[in-house]
């Protein structure tokens, strides 16, 4: 059949089959709605799921050692999910009942799911895709995830398989919670399948490169559907002069090493450049040595995967160039690399724990070269500088400021969006 897609997860079950897109869309649409579910029950199931993931004996840890499972587990904990909903809606009950607000007149409001959320996932970080889906579930939507067709990584489907085994009681259990979810894959050149999927979506969530998102966005859609786009982004770190002179640099280097090591710098929140506010080479050299040591220590907690030969070549090339013409510090193998030159620029993003460190006499000057795709700035600065810099950089388009060491923590808002807010429609009554 021409319209068949590969299905990894479907109606509460792990699958490895081909199903026609029309049949799949009909089944998802006919699956029991999550609307009658008290949000608290969804939170409890996710909390149980979190505990399951934290169990080191869980087979997922062997299968996906570098996929941030502890991080997903932490994100699904009751305390975090509750905070996500409260930050987005003011209450975890926004989708359960009408909540009264007095604003001159007495009115009550309730959030309803939009319907079908379709998530087009990027290949680089499947972890984030799962968190996108969790928000679709928390807002009681039906969800279809289009996973990258080229990837053999079935992390998303395997996570859902585990979620489906969690149970609170007969009605409110993982199996029923995952009834209205499908994880599918098909080659992006199959436009008809893409069109069928897109036409049914009430909300389209795109994760990926600018190029692929632009192509997907052009698929036909319902007039009422909303698009949320998480496209190419990059991130960097800054440390101001005061922190550089008085801060605990060893501790800072340790935290920076975490941000550099997580996801091998493939996440949009991963830093590729660190700007140090100083004019002295000695400051840069000192920090580079501390970072080198910290990256070595981080290998014990975040093991390194072997780069492809193309990636190896890119790293070795840069190391050689920087040894010949600039400065370079690196591990004996290809584990991590620190490079420094006198350029005033970002990156380039190389990945695989490759970090550029550059001196700058005044951090405000970065605003002059800021591209419009900066997602996160990891920042350490004294309070007044922190206020000035965050105001200045935010005005130039930066979407998030995080402490160094927490840059890749997925939080709400992300890329400027309180995603749950876009996954509901509001109904008011008087």
């Amino acid at each position, binding site marked *: 059949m021409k319209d068949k897609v590969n299905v990894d997860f479907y109606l509460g079950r792990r699958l490895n089959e081909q199903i026609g897109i029309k049949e799949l869309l009909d089944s998802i649409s006919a699956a029991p709605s999550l609307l009658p579910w008290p949000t608290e029950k969804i939170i409890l199931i996710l909390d149980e799921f979190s505990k399951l993931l934290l169990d080191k004996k869980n087979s997922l840890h062997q299968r996906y050692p570098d996929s941030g499972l502890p991080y997903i587990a932490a994100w699904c904990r009751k305390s975090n999910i509750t905070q996500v909903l409260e930050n987005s809606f003011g209450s975890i009950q926004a989708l359960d009942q009408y909540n009264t607000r007095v604003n001159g007149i007495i009115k009550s409001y309730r959030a309803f799911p939009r319907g079908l959320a379709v998530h087009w996932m990027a290949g680089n970080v499947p972890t984030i895709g799962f968190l996108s889906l969790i928000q679709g579930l928390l807002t009681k939507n039906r969800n279809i995830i289009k996973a990258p067709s080229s990837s053999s990584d079935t992390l998303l489907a395997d996570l859902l398989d585990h979620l489906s085994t969690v149970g609170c009681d007969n009605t409110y259990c993982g199996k029923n919670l995952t009834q209205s979810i499908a994880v599918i894959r098909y080659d992006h050149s199959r436009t008809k399948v893409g069109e069928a999927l897109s036409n049914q979506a009430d909300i389209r969530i795109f994760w990926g490169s600018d190029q692929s998102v632009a192509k997907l966005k052009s698929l036909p859609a319902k007039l009422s559907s909303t698009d949320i786009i998480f496209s190419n982004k990059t991130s960097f770190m800054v440390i101001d002069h005061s922190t550089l002179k008085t801060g605990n640099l060893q501790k800072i280097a340790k935290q920076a090493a975490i941000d550099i090591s997580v996801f091998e710098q493939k996440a949009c929140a991963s830093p590729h450049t660190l700007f140090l506010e100083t004019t002295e080479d000695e400051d840069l050299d000192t920090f580079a040595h501390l970072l080198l040591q910290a990256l070595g220590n981080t290998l014990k907690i975040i093991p*390194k995967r*072997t*780069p*492809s*030969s*193309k*990636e*190896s*070549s*890119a790293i*070795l*090339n840069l190391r*050689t*160039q920087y*040894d*010949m*013409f600039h400065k*370079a510090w690196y591990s*004996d*193998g*290809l*584990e991590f690399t620190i490079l420094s030159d006198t350029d005033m620029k970002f990156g380039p993003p190389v990945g695989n724990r490759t970090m550029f460190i550059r001196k700058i006499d005044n951090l405000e000057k970065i605003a002059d070269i800021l591209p419009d795709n900066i997602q996160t700035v990891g920042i350490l600065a004294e309070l007044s500088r922190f206020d000035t810099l965050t105001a200045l950089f935010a005005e130039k388009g930066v979407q998030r400021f995080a402490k160094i060491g927490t840059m890749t923590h997925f939080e709400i808002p992300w890329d400027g969006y309180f995603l749950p807010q876009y996954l509901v429609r509001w109904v008011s009554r008087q």
Partner: protein
Amino acid sequence: MDFPNLDQLLSKEVYTCDKKEKSELLLNAVKEVSQHHFERCQPYRRFCQKKEFEPATLSLLKDLPYLPASIFKDALLLSIAEEKIFRTISSSATSFGKPSRIVLDKQTSKRQSKCFNKVVLERLGNKRREFIILDTPESIGRNNQITARSSTIRSLLFCAGKTDTCVNEIDGSLVLDEDKIDSLLQNAEEEKTQVVIFGFTYILYSYVVKRLLSTAKKYRLSGGKIIHIGGWKKLESEKVTPEKLMEDCSKVFGVNSDDVIDFYGFTEQSGMIYPTCEAGFRHSPVWGDIIIRDPLTLQPMDIGQKGLMQFITPIQTSYPGHSVLTEDIGYIQGVDTCTCGRKGAFFKVLGRAQHAEVRGCGDIMAEKFA
């Protein structure tokens, strides 16, 4: 410039020295040439100093620092005065990358040709043959700035008695002259001429062998040789293995499968060529060696283990290309013990690992084929 140790090494036969005899000769020549580059190429000297490497203290080849092949795309490295540049060679640039550029002085050019010729003659036999080149007439023309593709073709022609090309460039596209190749092959068969058919791997298979197979046309080129080079990537996607290529070539050209020879080489060490032997392996000549390195730790690996391939040879003195780590993955099968009888490390190149860009000359040429 004098390089007595290198001269002594090059006076040896290509594949007759065993490990014991070769080790010291090669080490001394590499030391001599490393010292030369260290003294004359400032970026190379800085690179060595950063690695706390002093050529004079080199005692094991595994301790010789290596340059990644891609550095020659980003930096023009010279160990000679600019006025001594005799020829610049550029690799095939791709849509994604820049070409590598290496410079030769007369001395290096001559030395490279000598080494290349020795290896080719050792494999093809010391006899002039008629060459049928699966490329354009321009590819065998002369010019100071040449591409790696035409450099490879031209360097082979030293042993050609007569040369014919059978590809034409029409409006920027390459088109095979089917009538011409048919007539050349028929003549060779009738006159029992021992021809050499030379082409880039993809062109040879996709545009010649496959077509002949589909028409069931067969030739009997007794004593003929088929030489192909570069670019397995496109054929891999068509599930054509080296064995299949060899078998199909034997079938359509009527040559022994031993006479279908796959040449491997790369611009950054031009002059070095590694033909497959009768047993299907490639051999390090006396003036070269190979080290396989772990793709993560970069440590040398044992015989049989697959990893990134580092090639060492002292034959270039105009640029520091004497120790190059490629993007290619391969393994060493053994040293001095190949059933073909040649000495030296014998190895297989398994190709570039995933994500590597299409780079070989043949792949680039294939993109231009109509």
